[in-house]
């Protein structure tokens, strides 16, 4: 049954995987290809492309090296050996926003700081996520009523994905928030949305 397909020069797995998204016939060819590979005694895994992309994204969330106040001390503790954020693939703190996926806003954001934070966020490539760590970033914290200089929550100038309550939050809380973010990423459908949904779908992507 599959012999005539195998007569043509076999495309690479990457080519087939890319074509399979657009043309279901390519998917059939891909599955035959896999059967052929299996026959050679090699291991093969098959997964929906969305899941594969989400898995790689959620397992390598690189945060931006960015601490503003006391919450940053807890963030550093989370990154250090005892709590070891690297277990979740999120231990590679990047010194430039161009390489970062996640912005952990760890500390009080003052009115003077807010435009700088926004600029760093704008410099990060998509897809990007923001974590509001600590009471100050969620709603002003201890400065919420009388602090003339503190922005009462970073959601006033940034789209926040996860809030981590605490003053400051313990490392366990930050890890919990990271795992929450991983679940959030896992629910995303990056490929399906881009290729199979109508371009002018009224449904919002994220």
């Amino acid at each position, binding site marked *: 049954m599959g012999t005539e397909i195998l007569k043509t020069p076999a495309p690479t797995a990457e080519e087939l995987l890319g074509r399979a998204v657009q043309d279901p016939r390519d998917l059939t060819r891909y599955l035959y290809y896999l059967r052929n590979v299996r026959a050679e005694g090699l291991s093969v895994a098959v997964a929906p492309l969305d899941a594969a992309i989400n898995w790689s994204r959620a397992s390598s969330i690189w945060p931006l090296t960015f601490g503003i106040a006391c919450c940053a001390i807890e963030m550093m503790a989370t990154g250090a050996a005892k709590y070891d954020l690297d277990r979740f693939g999120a231990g590679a703190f990047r010194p430039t926003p161009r390489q970062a996926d996640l912005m952990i806003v760890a500390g009080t954001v003052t*009115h*003077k700081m*807010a*435009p700088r934070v926004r600029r760093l966020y704008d410099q990060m490539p998509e897809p990007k996520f923001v974590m509001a760590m600590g009471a100050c970033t969620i709603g002003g914290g201890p400065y919420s009523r*009388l602090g*003339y*200089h503190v*922005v*009462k929550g970073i959601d*006033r*100038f940034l789209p926040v994905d996860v809030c981590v309550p605490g003053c400051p939050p313990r490392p366990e809380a930050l890890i919990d928030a990271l795992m929450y973010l991983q679940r959030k990423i896992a629910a995303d459908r990056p490929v399906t949305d881009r290729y199979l949904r109508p371009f002018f779908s009224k449904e919002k992507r994220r």
Partner: protein
Amino acid sequence: MNPREIHTLLKERFGEAVRDWTEPEVGDSSLDLDSGSLHDVCVLLRDDSALRFDFLRLVSAVDRTDRIECVYHLWSYELAHSAALRVELDRSDPRVASLSDVWPTAEWHEREAYDMMGVVFENHPHLHRILLPEDWEGYPLRKDYVAPREYNGLTNE
């Protein structure tokens, strides 16, 4: 030297510019000065062989609602004694000579006092706000300060 002895020494040199000694009810005693004589007094405090105040610990300003006080805490590493100077300033136009040429430490301390209290330090090399943004209005640590409702498009409520 204890503060009392320093006061006696300054009184001999500067006369009326140094106010009379008052025993503090609580806390440290301070030497009250006329604001005009502050710079000369400080040069003497630094250079006199019996005083040798080589370190300015801090400059702070206090809003007493009818006046503004500037407080200078001094320390001598060489002789291990300390002193606190206090000058009273007009609240509507607080002005006093900068000490940044006597102790370079004063530069940032005075910028902070300017930022928070609006005290103008004359002959300061770079008197700008140090903590708040340049375009901030008002001096936040004054007792009658009202926080802005909005800054830079972000509300404060």
